[in-house]
């Protein structure tokens, strides 16, 4: 029988109907530039700790609601962190506790 079509993955959006493109752009916030820098530093090294492919796969694994709700660099830092956990560079517990401690600090200025 013909292979049933399970439908497209959420990120695989070529050809879907969508609204008008707004030719807008923003100056990147410092934290976004640092996320970008982290990906470059972790992937462009003798022993890469994150590959662009793992980044993409982790972003693709976000459910549709999270994918749409999160901004571009929020998806990136999520995927970098997820990859580092998979690789054993970070543990779930240490990252979770570190995030808690950071939020307990005074408000963050950029």
């Amino acid at each position, binding site marked *: 029988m013909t*292979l049933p*079509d399970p439908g*497209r*993955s959420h990120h695989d959006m*070529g050809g879907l109907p969508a609204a008008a493109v707004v030719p807008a752009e923003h100056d990147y916030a410092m934290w976004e530039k640092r996320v970008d820098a982290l990906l470059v530093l972790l992937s462009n090294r003798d022993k890469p700790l994150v590959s662009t492919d793992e980044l*993409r*796969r982790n972003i693709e694994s976000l459910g549709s609601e999270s994918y749409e709700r999160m901004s571009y660099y929020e998806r990136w830092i999520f995927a970098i962190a997820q990859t580092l956990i998979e690789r054993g560079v970070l543990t779930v517990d240490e990252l979770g506790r570190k995030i808690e401690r950071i939020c307990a600090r005074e408000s963050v200025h950029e």
Partner: protein
Amino acid sequence: MRFRPGDRVRVRRSFPIGHVRTPYYVRGKAGLVERACGSFPNPEELAYARPGLPALPLYRVQFLQRDLWPDYAGHPADVLVAEIYQHWLEAVENLQ
């Protein structure tokens, strides 16, 4: 390298789970090989922190837009070119 520029190919109508770089909208569609890009480690393996070797041949495949979209309203010779890995392509024997 299995294919050469000018070869007619079809993208396999396949829907694997996992990380792939073949967009949904070209699956099952036929086009022409525009050029061979070289061989690269397989992203379907790299995505899982595996080396992705041996490297796989990558091709730019050109599709007529009117073959991709039933309601395409542009120029009849408008095309789209996407990079597709060799294991996603099969030869089209008959001219259509």
